[in-house]
């Protein structure tokens, strides 16, 4: 049944599916994991870095991109599609500033990206964008925000979310561990993001890329060393928790 209704995406299937959009969501599930956390004074984005070939320059692979001074996004899915979307979003951020003198709100730019994605689900001759995006930032009123968009063009606000490969596992981890204490201060929020990623990333801190935005400060990308520091701290905490547990049982 599906094969007859997935050629031209403008056609609905008899039971109401847009199959090309659903296939795009499958493509997203193949991409490397990205996680976003909304703290009280900080927003954190973490992504799993795919291992690069020996001769490849690692620095050219960037999955976390700034859209403006106060907004950034991470994506999961087709990198080339993401590049196009990010370009359009960056232009829109500046056009908005030119037309109305104010920087975009996080919700505005999310809505723009979502509208762009939706347009491509309702055009003939075009396929949807194969990416989901996590968009984070602070608005003028100082409130932190995290939004997620998907290939169908819908967007929602989240406290914490994950996209890409094993997103379900990470989301379940976050549901269990996202508490008021966990985001009590900036460092805790960063650690929560790394712990969430470590659930699914093999070979630890080497394959993690992390970025944060604090209120009224520009995007900060963590260096490999800083990530290592956090990972060691997390492992120490784990060991101490284990020791406490074993002491209790004895």
């Amino acid at each position: 049944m599906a094969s007859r209704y997935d050629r031209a995406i403008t056609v609905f299937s008899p039971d109401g599916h847009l199959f090309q959009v659903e296939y795009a969501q499958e493509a997203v599930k193949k991409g490397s994991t990205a996680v976003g956390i909304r703290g009280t004074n900080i927003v954190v984005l973490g992504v799993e870095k795919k291992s690069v070939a020996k001769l490849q320059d690692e620095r050219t692979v960037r999955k976390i991109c700034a859209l403006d001074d106060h907004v950034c996004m991470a994506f999961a899915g087709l990198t080339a599609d993401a590049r196009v979307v990010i370009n359009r979003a960056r232009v829109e951020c500046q056009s908005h500033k030119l037309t109305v003198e104010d920087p975009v709100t996080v919700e505005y730019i999310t809505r723009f990206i979502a509208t762009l994605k939706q347009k491509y689900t309702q055009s003939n001759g075009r396929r949807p964008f194969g990416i989901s995006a996590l968009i984070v930032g602070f608005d003028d009123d100082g409130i932190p925000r995290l939004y997620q968009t998907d290939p169908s063009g819908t967007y929602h606000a989240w406290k914490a979310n994950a996209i890409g490969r094993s997103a379900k596992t990470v989301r379940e981890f976050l549901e269990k561990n996202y508490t008021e204490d966990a985001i009590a201060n900036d460092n805790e929020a960063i650690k929560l993001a790394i712990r969430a990623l470590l659930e699914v990333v093999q070979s630890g801190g080497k394959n993690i890329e992390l970025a944060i935005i604090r209120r009224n400060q520009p995007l900060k990308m963590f260096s490999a060393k800083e990530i290592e520091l956090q990972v060691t701290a997390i492992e120490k905490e784990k060991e101490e928790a284990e020791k406490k547990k074993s002491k209790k049982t004895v």
Partner: protein
Amino acid sequence: MALQDVCKWQAPDTQELSPHLSQAGGWAVPRGCDPPTFLQTQGPRLAHGTTTLAFRFRHGVIAAADTRSSCSNYVACPASRKVIPVHQHLLGTTSGTSADCTTWYRVLQRELRLRALREGQLPSVASAAKLLSAMMSRYRGLDLCVATALCGWDRSGPALFYVYSDGTRLQGDIFSVGSGSPYAYGVLDRGYRYDMTTQEAYALARCAVAHATHRDAYSGGSVDLFHVRESGWEYVSRNDAWVLYSELQKLPELEEQEEKEASQVHPEPATPAQSW
């Protein structure tokens, strides 16, 4: 879209400004005729004379204007409204061609309302000023004449912008626009302080417009006074300009009396006796 590109059809962009206005320069003029020159030689004689002023201070923004609408030597309306509300927290003083001002303010109202619906909050006064100046600068050279001060209260507090139809957009604390503005500026510059009380601000605005109506032939009628506070704009009063001016003239007599009383209490020192 592929089919679109072949047919060369452009989809309307919902993010752009939406006024359905004819393209600038889209005039039915004879071939080879240049619109600005045409307007200067053949167009309607539009005269502009007015006094409007606006200044921002701690407790908001004051907007005041006279009420005389003139057309060369003829007073078309002695009681016109030159301060136009745009929305609850934004007023505009208008000067220039009345028709242009009212039309462009309606366009601005529509743009701001659309954006408020889309974004969930009203744009700031800076945004409104930017939108207005961008819209009008497309018609530059076509004899549009709108000189306006946008007075409002937004997230950043009291805000005041001057916008002119050639695209000028300036931020400031005091603006006076119109043929009577030099007279008003004199009074304003003398009495303005950011930390004035509301009553002092009202008095200053009324005094400035009254003086301008006294000297400028194209200003007169009454003095309208508006105040934009944090809670929105308020129409404070409309006073006859001549009555106001006469009352202001009485005040120096009071000052003279006070001086006399003061000199009686402290007699001037006696001249020292000349020594031979």
